[in-house]
C-alpha cells in the first residue's frame, strides 16, 4: 500500500490530474442520489432557464435541473460503459488467448470472424443491431461488448502469441496442462500490462460510442439521464448562443482526457519508453 502511494506521488502531474478526474466521476456516480439537488426525472421549473442560485446550470428542454441530470448521467453512462468494456474484455481475451494457444483451425475461425465484423463500420453495425434487438440497456451493453471485443481480441491474440512461444508455456504443455490452465496461469499474468493499458483506452471509446448512440437516439432512452442524449435534447439551443448542450459534452470530454492521461502514464511506466 505504501509502495502504491509512493508510485502515485511520483506520477507526473497529468496522471495525477487524470486520476483525480476519475475519482471525482466515480464518487459522483456512486453517490448521485445524495449529491443531486433534484431528482433525475423531476420537472422542477420552466424550460431553458439560465444558470441561477437555485438551478446552478439552468434547466433543460423539459424544465429539468441540468446539474442533477449531469450527476445522474455520470451514473448511467459511466457504469454502462464500464460494464460493456469489462464484458468486451472477457470475450476478447478468452477468444484471443484461445486462438494463440490452439492455433490452427481455432485461430483461423476466430480471426476471420473478427475480420468480418471489423469490416463493417462499428457505428453502422451498432445502429443496425440495436434496431433489430431493441434498445433496452442489457441489449445495448451486449451489442457494444461484442463489437468492441473484436479490437480486444486482436490485441489479446498478438500478446498471447508472443507468450505462447516462451519455454515456460512449452514446459506447461509437456507437464500435461490443458489449454484453459495455460491461458489462465501462464499467459494472462504476463499479458496484464498491455491489456490494462488497452482497457483504459477502450473504456474511452466505449464511452464515446454510447454517447454517440444516445445522441443518435438509439442509446440510453429518455427519460433516463445520459450525457449523449442530453446533448441531443438541448442541441437546438446552441443556435441561440446558449452553452447548455456543451455542459454534458464537456463532461464527456473531461473524462476521456483524464483516462487518457492515466493510460499514457501507465504505458510509459510499464514499457520503459523514453519521451
Amino acid at each position, binding site marked *: 500500500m505504501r509502495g502504491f502511494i509512493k508510485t502515485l506521488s511520483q506520477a507526473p502531474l497529468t496522471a495525477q490530474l487524470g486520476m483525480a478526474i476519475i475519482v471525482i466521476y466515480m464518487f459522483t456516480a456512486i453517490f448521485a442520489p445524495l449529491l443531486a439537488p433534484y431528482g433525475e426525472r423531476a420537472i422542477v421549473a420552466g424550460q431553458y432557464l439560465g444558470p441561477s442560485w437555485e438551478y446552478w446550470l439552468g434547466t433543460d428542454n423539459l424544465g429539468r435541473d441540468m446539474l442533477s441530470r449531469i450527476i445522474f448521467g455520470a451514473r448511467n453512462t459511466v457504469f454502462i460503459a464500464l460494464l460493456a468494456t469489462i464484458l468486451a474484455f472477457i470475450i476478447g481475451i478468452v477468444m484471443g488467448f484461445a486462438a494463440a494457444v490452439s492455433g490452427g483451425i481455432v485461430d483461423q475461425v476466430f480471426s476471420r470472424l473478427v475480420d468480418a465484423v471489423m469490416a463493417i463500420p462499428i457505428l453502422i453495425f451498432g445502429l443496425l443491431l440495436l434496431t433489430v434487438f431493441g434498445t433496452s440497456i442489457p441489449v445495448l451493453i451486449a451489442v457494444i461488448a461484442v463489437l468492441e471485443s473484436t479490437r480486444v481480441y486482436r490485441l489479446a491474440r498478438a500478446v498471447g502469441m508472443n507468450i505462447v512461444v516462451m*519455454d*515456460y508455456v512449452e*514446459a506447461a504443455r*509437456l507437464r500435461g496442462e490443458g489449454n484453459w490452465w495455460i491461458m489462465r496461469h501462464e499467459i494472462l499474468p504476463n499479458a496484464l500490462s498491455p491489456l490494462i493499458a488497452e482497457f483504459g483506452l477502450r473504456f474511452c471509446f466505449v464511452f464515446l460510442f454510447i454517447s454517440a448512440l444516445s445522441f443518435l437516439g438509439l442509446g440510453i432512452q429518455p427519460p433516463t439521464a445520459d450525457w449523449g442524449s442530453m446533448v441531443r435534447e438541448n442541441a437546438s439551443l446552441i443556435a441561440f448562443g446558449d452553452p447548455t448542450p456543451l455542459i454534458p459534452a464537456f463532461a464527456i470530454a473531461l473524462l476521456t482526457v483524464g483516462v487518457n492521461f492515466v493510460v499514457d502514464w501507465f504505458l510509459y511506466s510499464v514499457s520503459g519508453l523514453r519521451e
Partner: protein
Amino acid sequence: MSNQKRAANAENTELLRIQALRIEAQLHGEWAEIVKGVDLVLRRRELVGLIGESGAGKSTIGLAAMGHVRNGCRISGGSVLFDGIELRDMDSGTKRSLLGVRIAYVAQSAAAAFNPAHTIGSQVIEAAVCHGVMSPDGARERAVALFRQLQLPAPETFGKRYPHQVSGGQLQRAMLAMAMVCGPDMIVFDEPTTALDVTTQFEVLHAMKQAIQAEEMAGLYITHDLAVVAQLTDRIMVLRHGDTVEEGDTRQIVEAPRAEYTQQLLNVRKALKPEHRSAEGAPVLQLKGITASYGRSGPQVLRDVSLSVPPGTTAAIVGESGSGKSTLARVATGLLPPSAGGIELDGEQLSYRLRHRTREQLRRLQMIYQMPDVSINPAQRIEVIIGRPLTLYFGMTGQKRRARVEELLEQVDLPADYADRRPTELSGGQKQRIGIARALAADPDVIICDEVTSALDQVVAQEILSLLLRLQDETNTSYVFITHDLATVRAIADTVAVMYQGEVVEGGAAEDILGNPTTDYAKLLLSSVPQMKIGWLEEVTQARARSARGETQTVPGNA
C-alpha cells in the same frame, strides 16, 4: 599510411592509458558503481584480454576505452587517455574523427551489426569513405585485400553479397574487415566468437589472429572464455564485480595464476565425474530409427537417429547448431511427431503425440531448458512453479505441497523461503536451479537437459553441473544432455552421440569417443575446442595442415 605512422612511433609506446576509471549505472533511480577504479595500459601492437563473467564490467570498460558509455551510465571518475587525447570530455566532433578511423569496434553478433538491406562490401568501406580516409575505389581494394587476409571465400566478389547470403562465421570475419578497413590503431573486440559454433570459432580465431598480426594493431579482447583469450593475447586482465582481480602476462595467468578466482576460472569444466558409469540394465529411454521433418514436405532434420539411455547415466548429444539435436528432444517429448521410428520409455511404447500420452508417461520424462529467464514463468511465485507438478502428478496441496517444495529447494541448494519469491528476484543460476527443482518435483526417470549451462557464466555453469551430478547420485535419474560444448560433455557424460546434419555420426562410451574419435567430423569437432594451453591454436592448425597434405595425423591436446 597507417604503417608509416606506426613506424614513426617507437616500439612499446603507450597507446591507451585508463586510470582509476569509475563508471556508475542508474538502477531504480539510484547510481551504483559498476566499474570501481580500474587501471589499464595498452601499448601499441599489444593485445590485452579482459576476462570475467557477466556483470564483471568488461564490456563497460571496453566501451569506455572508446570514450563511450551506455545509456543510463556515466563515468564518475578517472581518465581515459588515447594517444594523449582525453576521451572522457571529448566533444562529439572529435569523437567522430577518432571512432571508426583510429579506434574500431567488433561486436558479438555480426548478424545484428550488419544492415540486412545493404551489401557487405558497401558497409565495410562506409566508414573509410565517410571519414575521407580513402577514395571509394581505394577502400574497395583494401576491403578485398582484407577479405583475402581473413580467408573469406571469393574475396573479389564477397563484398557484393548481402549479410543473409553468407554464414555466421563469414559475417563475423566481414565485421572484422569493417573494423580494420581504416587501419585503426586499436580495436575493441567484444566477445566476437562467443555466438559461433566451435568449428567456426576455430576458423575465425585463426583468421583473426593472422590478420591482427599482419596489420600490427593493438586491441582489447573481451571474453568470458579464458581458453580463447589465451590463444590471442599478450596480457590478460581478470575482472570481477567491476574490479581488477589479477593482471599479468598470458603465460603467467594461464600457467601460474595468483588469485583464487583466476584459478577457479581455469578449473571450470575439469572432469567432474569420478568414474563413468557403464550401461547396466535395460535402457530407460530408447529412440529407434527416428526420422523427422518440420512440415509435411520440409527437409528431413533427423534421419534414422537411434539413441539409448541406460538407467542412472548421462547420455550426451553433441553437435553444432542445425545438427538436429534439439529436434531430437522435441521428438522425444512429443512436441514434434516423427515420420518414422519408435520412442520407448522403460520398454513401453510412447505415442508420437504429446496429447496421446498419459499423465504418468509425461511425469516420467521431464525437461530442463537453456534459458532460465524464459523457461520459468516470471509472473508466478516459486512455490507455484515447483508446486504445480506436485499437484498435477501427485495431488499434493496446501501444507503438504509447501513442505515438499521446501524440501526440493533445499535439494537444489536454495533457501526454503525462496518459495515465496518471484523469478525476477533471482539470478540466472538460481533460476536454473528452480528449473531443475521443477523437473525433480515430478520424480522423473529421465530428464532432458537442453543446453542447460550455455546461458550461464562458467563458474555458475560448473556449479549447476555438479548439482546435476549430485542429484543423479541421489535419485538415479537418467539425463539426456544436449549441448554444443564438448568441455561440458567431458565433464559429465557417460555415453556420447555426435550429431551432424541430422544423423548420429558417431556414438558410444564417452571415453572412447572423446579419447579416440574415428570419424572425420568428430575429430574436427573435438580438435576445435579451445584448450587452456598457449600455442594450442597454432598446434592444431599445423596438425590439420599436415593431415591435409597426407602426413601422419595427430590431433593434439584432448587430454
